[in-house]
């Protein structure tokens, strides 16, 4: 195998591992857990005998909102990190 073939194999392998195998599962599990914790806190204030329709619609809105918040925080963080990077260089 020549250098380029090895390099391409390394790239492919790293992307495959970080996207699919480990990171994705971790990220999804992490998001799931966070959403679950936060929306349970918000929407199931007094746990009853079964989940009410009000609780369900609250939970749906909450999940959507949490993901929106995630995206918003992510872009704010990236913007800030870029500025920091530009400032220190």
């Amino acid at each position, binding site marked *: *195998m*020549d*250098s*380029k*073939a*090895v*390099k391409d*194999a*390394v*790239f492919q*392998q*790293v*992307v495959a*591992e*970080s996207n699919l*195998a*480990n*990171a994705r599962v971790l*990220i999804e599990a*992490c*998001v799931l857990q*966070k959403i679950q914790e*936060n*929306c349970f806190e*918000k*929407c199931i204030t007094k746990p009853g005998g079964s989940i009410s329709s009000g609780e369900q619609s*609250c939970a*749906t*809105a*909450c*999940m*959507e*909102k*949490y993901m*929106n*918040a*995630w995206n*918003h*925080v*992510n872009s*704010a*963080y*990236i913007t*800030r*990190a870029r500025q*920091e990077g530009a400032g220190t260089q």
Partner: protein
Amino acid sequence: MSLSQSPLDGLNLEALNDQDKAEIRQFLSKQQQRSQIQAQTHQLTQVCWTKCVPGAVKSGKLDKTEETCLANCVNRFMDLNLLTVKHLQNMRS
């Protein structure tokens, strides 16, 4: 990620020339940066969600106040982060 058991073991890394080695290094640091940003975003979302979305959830969309609060929250968190680093450095010297 356990690279020790990955299929990379089968590759002849000796075959890499210097330019390709440098490219791999750059690529790896980008990947690492990406996952660090994601991890940091998780932490920040948790912190800022508590601060900026305190009441009952009425809609799945963020309103303007919440959006502003989240962006400010991230920036103030970073400010505090820098301040803390500086403070610790001062204590050390």
